[in-house]
């Protein structure tokens, strides 16, 4: 065990050295920055260290664990949470699902001209993350699968068979699997270039989800197994908006995260959320480009064809990204365990996992900011010509992408700001949880030395990935 602790310290130290990660990197697309890129890394690390000190001094009791909630004033909260709004949102979700699937099949089978890939991969997968962070769990309202499940339940009434008990050991593992497969489809399978295949997957997922909802109940499956519902729900816990008993109200930002129940599979969900984005950033840089040919050659040398070898290499990279994040988090928790308190590694991994959700959020926000801002505009002309057949339903079919809406440098500043704010948020959550778990403020702070290492490591990794992807 001692050797494991030493390994943990070494790994954390290595990852928590921003200069070593960035000193030799160049920002090929951001050459006019007034501040060198390595200084960004050191500044980000300094912000974390200062935040850590400030928390130790100024945050002596857990606050987020017991945060309050109050409804939106003037009946607004009740109106927004009403059944009528839920039905409208659900119908909208179902309509968009139908449009996307029909569009995917009817439209031309190329990604650039088809509505489905842009909608699924940009508006849904990325846009809803931003939407959830700002507005709360909006996907719960517009989820087409939940809407269909609830509508079916309402129609069948008592005739509907009683749902089976959900196996507790399954926890959120099905969601983790979905959240691993979906990025594989995008990053490795490249199904975005083949809309017919992409929407076939969407259709298949719809069938599986509706079947699972029929077996275990719509709400249970939505909370545990439906990958996208779990994904957006995690992000929504950062938001100040929360719905309770059909009333939308306000809570302190981040206050939804300490209430996250760390059932089995929860750690896997968060690790996959960060790990897949890590691979996406890594795969766009020169390091992966230098490794990839050897990896492909290795697979072809044992008998795989070139296409299969390329997919296998990507799969290895994706799993490596997830494994790296999982291993790093585990090493940090192993270090935290060394301060005492009688907690097992597994318990520590579970009770601190919610603190990584803001990191997952800023990994998405920073990595996909320009993708969302630039490529997201494609939906403006695709909505007018959803199937690439030359129609112009809204008079926007000939519009293009306006790259001037956000400058390259502006995007970089925003990305760095996201990374820093997200990691400070994570540190705050960890400090709050440590105070609650350890009772003694001194031991709580000591445990957070390790968490600080984890956070600085993740910050460095995030900045390195951003710089790496820009090369």
């Amino acid at each position, binding site marked *: 065990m001692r050797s494991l602790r030493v390994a943990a310290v070494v790994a954390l130290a290595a990852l928590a050295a921003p200069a070593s990660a960035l000193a030799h990197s160049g920002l090929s697309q951001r050459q006019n920055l007034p501040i060198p890129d390595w200084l960004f890394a050191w500044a980000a690390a300094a912000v974390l260290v200062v935040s850590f000190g400030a928390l130790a001094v100024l945050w002596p009791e857990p606050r987020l664990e017991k945060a309050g909630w109050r409804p939106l004033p003037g009946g607004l909260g009740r109106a927004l949470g009403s059944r009528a709004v839920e039905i409208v949102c659900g*119908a909208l979700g*179902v*309509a968009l699902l*139908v*449009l996307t699937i*029909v*569009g995917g099949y*009817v*439209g*031309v089978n*190329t*990604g*650039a*001209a088809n509505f489905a890939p842009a909608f699924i991969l940009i508006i849904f997968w990325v846009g809803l993350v931003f939407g959830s962070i700002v507005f709360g769990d909006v996907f719960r309202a517009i989820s087409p699968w939940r809407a*269909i499940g609830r*509508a*079916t339940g*309402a*129609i069948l009434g008592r005739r509907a068979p009683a749902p089976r008990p959900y196996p507790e050991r399954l926890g959120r593992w099905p969601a983790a699997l979905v959240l691993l497969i979906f990025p594989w489809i995008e990053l490795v399978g*490249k199904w975005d*270039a083949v809309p017919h295949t992409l929407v076939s997957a969407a259709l298949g997922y719809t069938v599986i989800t509706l079947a699972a909802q029929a077996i275990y109940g719509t709400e249970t499956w939505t909370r545990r197994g439906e990958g996208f519902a779990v994904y957006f729900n995690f992000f929504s816990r950062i938001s100040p908006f929360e719905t309770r008993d059909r009333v939308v109200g306000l809570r302190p930002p981040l206050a939804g995260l300490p209430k996250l129940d760390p059932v089995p599979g929860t750690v896997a969900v968060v690790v996959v959320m960060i790990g897949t984005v890590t691979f996406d950033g890594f795969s*766009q840089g020169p390091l992966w*480009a230098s490794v*990839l*040919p050897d990896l*492909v*050659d290795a697979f072809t040398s044992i008998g795989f*064809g*070139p*296409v299969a*070898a*390329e997919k296998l*290499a*990507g799969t290895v990279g994706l799993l490596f990204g997830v494994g790296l994040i999982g291993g790093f988090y585990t090493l940090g928790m192993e270090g935290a365990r060394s301060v005492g308190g009688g907690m097992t590694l597994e318990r520590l991994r579970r009770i601190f996992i919610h603190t990584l959700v803001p990191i997952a959020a800023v990994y998405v926000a920073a990595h996909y900011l320009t993708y969302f801002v*630039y*490529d997201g505009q*494609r939906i403006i*002309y695709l909505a007018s*010509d*959803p*199937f*690439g*057949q*030359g*129609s*112009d*339903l809204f008079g926007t*079919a*000939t*519009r*293009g*992408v*306006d*790259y*001037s809406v956000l400058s390259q440098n502006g995007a970089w500043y925003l990305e760095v700001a996201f990374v820093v704010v997200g990691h400070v948020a994570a540190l705050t959550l960890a400090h709050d949880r440590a105070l609650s778990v350890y009772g003694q403020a001194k031991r709580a702070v000591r445990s957070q030395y390790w968490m600080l290492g984890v956070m600085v490591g993740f910050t460095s990794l995030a900045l390195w990935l951003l710089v790496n992807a820009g090369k």
Partner: protein
Amino acid sequence: MRRLVLALLLAGALLSVAGCGGDSGGSSQNPVEQVSSEGGLRDRVQAAQNVSAADFPSADGKTLQQVAEEVKGGGKVEAGLASSVFTVGQSRFAFGVIDDQGQFVYGPTAVYVAPDPNKPAVGPFPAPADVLVTEGRYRSRQAAEETDPFAAVYEAQVRFDKRGPWSVLTVTKSGNTWLAAPAQINVTTKKADTIPGVGDSPPKVATDTLASVKGDEKLLDTRVPPSDMHKDSFADVLGKKPVALLFATPQLCQSRVCGPVTDVATQLEAKYRDKIEFIHQEVYANNDPNAGLRPPLQAFHLRTEPWLFVVNANGKITARLEGSFGIRAFENALKTAL
């Protein structure tokens, strides 16, 4: 609820029918509508599209120098050549006209040629402008961020009756004056032209696909965002269906007049994808201009870029374009294979 679902399905079906109501994709509007109207640019390009030889001084009995003397006085301009391979007989001569402020000049334009400035001039050959600006949705980031885009390229079909050096004079009508720009080119015989031409069988080369570049998308396409013209290798589709094979490097194009031909290809691909396979091939090994050309370019004996080869279903080249080419030239080339 059942009614609601049925209504949504119906709406989706109606939408799909509405979507199918147009032509087979791509735009049917006049390409000049895609040019910005700011500062009267669109009007100037439109005027440059309509050219008649009768609007220009006759070359009868005059040397090229005398034609130049006749049209001088309108200001100083340069001709930026947008093609480089010229052979005896009819050859495509593409160019842009750039004023002393570095701005592209658009107006009715014609070309005169002579083996020597003091030899009898031949011309005028009308050089209508061919629009390079695509619809917004087909515009790459490189093109979208261009502050002074090369909006249209002039193209003349010029006859050369012998090989060797030739002098060229481009003449552009600007208001009531003429803007003349000289240029020098070298004309070779068709026999000396080693690049496959119309009627030839192209080399059956494997062009890059995601598998051939081992998953490295940056090697596949320098366009931002990447085009989808890399699904099949040229060798796999040659002789099976018409192919438009485009050699171009959107990011590494080193000439100001090489033009956004890959954007033009993506726009026309939307219109012709059911009939023609579009394939794009990057130019430089490892996207490094110092690392030499990729094997497919070597197989075609290419030394410049961009190039377009249109090949019919029988595997014969029916059109080839070099340098900068606009929507009209590209589309006319595609039609030769159908």
